[in-house]
């Protein structure tokens, strides 16, 4: 296992790595797909693609409404975007590309965005004075702990998503290497033992883990934001 490869370098030392490139590919692909799905919509849908588009929007809206309530419907696009990006970012591992979410920079960006939203919602609900006072609850002596917990939330969110996908990558590559050397040990001309077992593991690590982590990341985002408003 290696880190993401450097593809090329822009001026001012901006590195375009595999992760950045694949992220942009995903963004462009999703944008084109959505443009296609929402192309010339009608009031009463007759085309299949409009039905699909409406189903996606409705599912995401219901998820947000169930977990955050009617008040926070403005967060639905953010949650939907996060969910799509996270799932596709993990699923591209299936076609042999490096999963975007196996790079700490991607997940850390999402976690920091969520943490900023939580702080903004807190300031909005209780005002700036009330926000500062919230750190000294329930007693003033506990303020440092409250500040640390504010920082540890995004860190643990970022590490959780990154760790799950990266662990899957490490374990599959270890198994691939092990099966290759096992096939070499029994003098097979091609590493025939690599057929089969990695596919089953990939079902768990790429598909199940990818969906699970996307779901959990979105759930935690919704829970943190809606609990910040109390």
């Amino acid at each position, binding site marked *: 296992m290696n*880190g993401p490869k450097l593809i090329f370098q822009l001026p001012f030392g901006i590195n375009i790595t595999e992760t950045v490139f694949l992220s942009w590919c995903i963004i462009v692909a999703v944008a084109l797909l959505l443009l296609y799905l929402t192309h010339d919509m009608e009031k009463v849908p007759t085309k299949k693609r409009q039905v699909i588009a409406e189903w996606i929007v409705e599912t995401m809206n219901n998820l947000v409404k169930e977990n955050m309530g009617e008040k926070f419907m403005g967060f639905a696009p953010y949650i939907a975007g996060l969910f799509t990006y996270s799932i596709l970012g993990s699923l591209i591992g299936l076609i042999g590309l490096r999963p975007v979410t196996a790079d700490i920079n991607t997940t850390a960006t999402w976690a920091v965005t969520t943490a900023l939203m939580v702080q903004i919602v807190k300031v909005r609900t209780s005002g700036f004075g009330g926000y500062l006072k919230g750190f000294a609850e329930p007693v003033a002596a506990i303020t440092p702990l409250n500040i640390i917990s504010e920082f540890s939330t995004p860190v*643990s969110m970022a590490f959780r998503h990154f*760790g*799950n996908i*990266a662990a899957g990558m490490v374990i599959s590559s270890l198994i691939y290497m092990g099966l290759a050397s096992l096939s070499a040990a029994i003098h097979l001309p091609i590493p025939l033992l690599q057929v089969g077992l990695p596919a089953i593991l990939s079902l768990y690590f790429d598909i199940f883990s990818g969906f699970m982590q996307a*779901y*959990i990341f979105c*759930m*935690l985002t919704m*829970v943190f934001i809606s609990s910040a408003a109390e």
Partner: protein
Amino acid sequence: MELARAIILGASAIGAGLAMIAGIGPGIGQGYAAGKASEAVGRQPEASGDIMRTMLIGCAVAESTGIYGFVVAIILLFINPLIGML
């Protein structure tokens, strides 16, 4: 110098293995959460959606410590900051 490097690499590999002992805790915790969730579903099948959601979030939070251990192991194996200290 070569010997020192070899010792550091070997010790880092052992350290990475030891760091992954952290995986025991989340395993026990998640199993306990899943068991309790099954009990709750058995007692109140109509609330299975809510129970499932709560359990998943609880499992995800319980997993953090294991993930921290894994990150330490990855750092020791692939980025190894200790070699730079030679």
